Structures are given as structure tokens and as C-alpha cells.
């Protein structure tokens, strides 16, 4: 299920600039998102810069993860968070 479990670096292409989205004819219970595992050195603004191109959009990520992130300055490696698309 984890797409990265079989990955290897080497000569594999870089997909870091891939953009994605989703929508439905059904009532959407929540905005579409992707999961992200926090790595050492990450901050919400750094993740926002990578995902949205603007560090100031960190609050979008914070709001989507209020259940697990109580303080936006305290995130921990290994935490799995939602990144709104």
C-alpha cells in the first residue's frame, strides 16, 4: 500500500513536481488530501513551500491536522499528516 516501500533512488525519475487533485459527483465529506510523513528538519512552512510554492500557506496544513498537531511549531519525524490538495 505504501508506494514508497519498493522505491529505490538510483536512476529513477524525479516526481517531486507532480501536481494532483480530485473531485466527485458525490457529496465530498472532506477536501481531497494526500498523506505525508514528517521527516527530520521539516516544518509546516517548509512543507507548504514545497507543496504550494508559498511558505505562508502552512496554516492550510495546520488546519487540516488540528487533531494531531496542537502546536504548529511542534511536529515530529514519523508523524503522518494530511496535505490538502
Amino acid at each position, binding site marked *: *500500500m505504501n*508506494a*514508497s516501500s*519498493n*522505491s*529505490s533512488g*538510483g*536512476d*529513477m*525519475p524525479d*516526481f517531486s*513536481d*507532480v*501536481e*494532483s*487533485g*480530485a*473531485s*466527485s*459527483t*458525490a*457529496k*465530498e*465529506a*472532506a477536501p*481531497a*488530501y*494526500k*498523506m505525508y510523513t514528517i521527516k527530520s528538519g521539516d516544518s509546516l512552512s517548509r512543507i507548504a513551500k514545497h507543496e504550494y510554492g508559498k511558505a505562508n500557506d502552512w496554516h492550510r496544513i495546520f488546519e487540516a491536522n488540528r487533531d494531531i498537531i496542537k502546536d504548529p511549531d511542534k511536529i515530529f519525524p514519523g508523524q503522518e499528516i*494530511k496535505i490538502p*490538495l
Partner: protein
Amino acid sequence: MKTSTPISLAVIMTALAFSMTACKKKEETTALPEPVPAPTVAPADVINVPVSVKQVTLSNKIDETTKQAAMAMNTFAANDTIYAVVDTIGSGKTAIKTVWTYHKGDQTAPVSEAVQEIDATGPASTEFHISKPSGWPVGDYQVEVFVNDAPATTQKFTVK
């Protein structure tokens, strides 16, 4: 004796009138039954049937309203936006996830993944799309579809 007859007649008539009124009231009471609420049974296709995947269609274009693929395809160009349209049946709150990967020999690279949570009340179409401004590397890809984290189906495609 002569004077008692009209009085007796009046008493009888009065009693008869009362009994008729009483009977009439009784009839009126039984003639108006309690209102019966209309049955609230939902159509058969939305009664607690969990969401399941009917089919997945890949395309480079969809109808934004119906979310239907313009044309099913499994080979794409480097600058295409790639859509996976997941048609489902059933109802209820459900998380539909797609995991997109690139395959080269026995190596796999993650491309993208996305989750859309829906509150379905019947058949629905949910589209997932990916694009890559710098262009898709040529090769083999696949998209896996999960329903509430359970694998549902996998579609393979190629970029040429």
C-alpha cells in the same frame, strides 16, 4: 291516566333523542381513524450497501460535471494530465484513495497519492488527476485504488 300519556310520550321521545345523539357521536368517533404515517423506506439501492468500485477508467480528459472520461485510454503523452475516474456504487462515508507509481524493471518509484472522502447516497463518479509540468518520463505506470484502505483494483498505463 289520561294526563300521564303526554308526559310519558315526552320522556320517551327525549330518551330516544339522547340515545340517537349518543350513537351518532360514537359513529363519528369510529369514522375518524388515527392518521397513519407514510412509510419511510428508502430505495433498495441506498440501504446500507457499502461503497464498492464498479470500474476505473483512465483518460486525459473528463467532463467536469459528470466526471466521466471523454475516452478510455491506457497510453498517454508526456504532457498529458492523467485522470483516473472511479465509478462506485453503494452509500455512506467512504475514503477513496489512489496511489500512482512508476515501474522500471523491478524498481518502483512513488509518483503521487490522493484521498477523497465522499458521503455517497448512490452511484457516484470520483476523479483523481495528476500532471507533471516538466513532462512525464516515458515508461510504465500504475494506479492502485483503495476503498477505506482496502485494495479495490489496479490499472496499468504507459507514457510514450
